[in-house]
């Protein structure tokens, strides 16, 4: 299954890219996707979204999803 992963702000810089396409063998918790792409075992202080909705680390990523990882927001 194919997903799109987006990175923003300091995470975009850390990852060296704004977006990538990934192929997963099966539906996977988003925290595992983060561990795979970042090589980090912790997702503390990382915000996660699936299809533009905030989700918790155990949320399941499905075929075609748009996944996003980013640091705490600082708008306004």
């Amino acid at each position, binding site marked *: 299954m194919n997903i799109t992963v987006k990175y923003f702000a300091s995470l975009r810089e850390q990852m060296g890219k704004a977006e990538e396409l990934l192929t997963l063998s099966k539906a996977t918790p988003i925290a595992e996707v983060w561990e795979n792409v970042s090589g980090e075992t912790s997702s503390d202080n990382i915000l996660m979204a699936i299809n*533009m909705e905030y989700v918790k680390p155990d949320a399941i990523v499905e075929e075609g999803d748009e996944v996003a990882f980013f640091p705490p*927001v600082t*708008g306004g």
Partner: protein
Amino acid sequence: MMPIEIRTSSFDPWEEINLHQQKMGKDGQFGATASFVGTMRDINEGEPVQSMTLEHYPGMTEKHLQEICADASQKWDLIDTLVIHRVGEIEIADPIVLVCVWSAHRAEAFDACRFIMEDLKSKAPFWKQESTTEGKRWVEKNTPG
């Protein structure tokens, strides 16, 4: 749908409120208009700042601003709301965000304007990167509301 705008160039918040109010055509209905404008300062956390870049998540940002305004309209009896937020390169003294709420009475307008602003700060996917004499730095957290 609530009026939500992401702007890539400088805007005049007072002119925007004025224009929006004329378009609304609710003269005589609203008795209270509460607004908040956030503006770029030349200092942050004690250090001089030269300029700022505001990044956002196109699509998710608009969606969340819509949800925040819809939430406010559920909680309070509002006539209209307007939210405008800058992205891109921002100069000192540029307006960054405008929140404006129209209602019959003042309590609703005050409460809803502040609620929208606090919710926007904690949920809407925007990120500030400041340019200082020491280089660029990502703002890590907002000042408490």
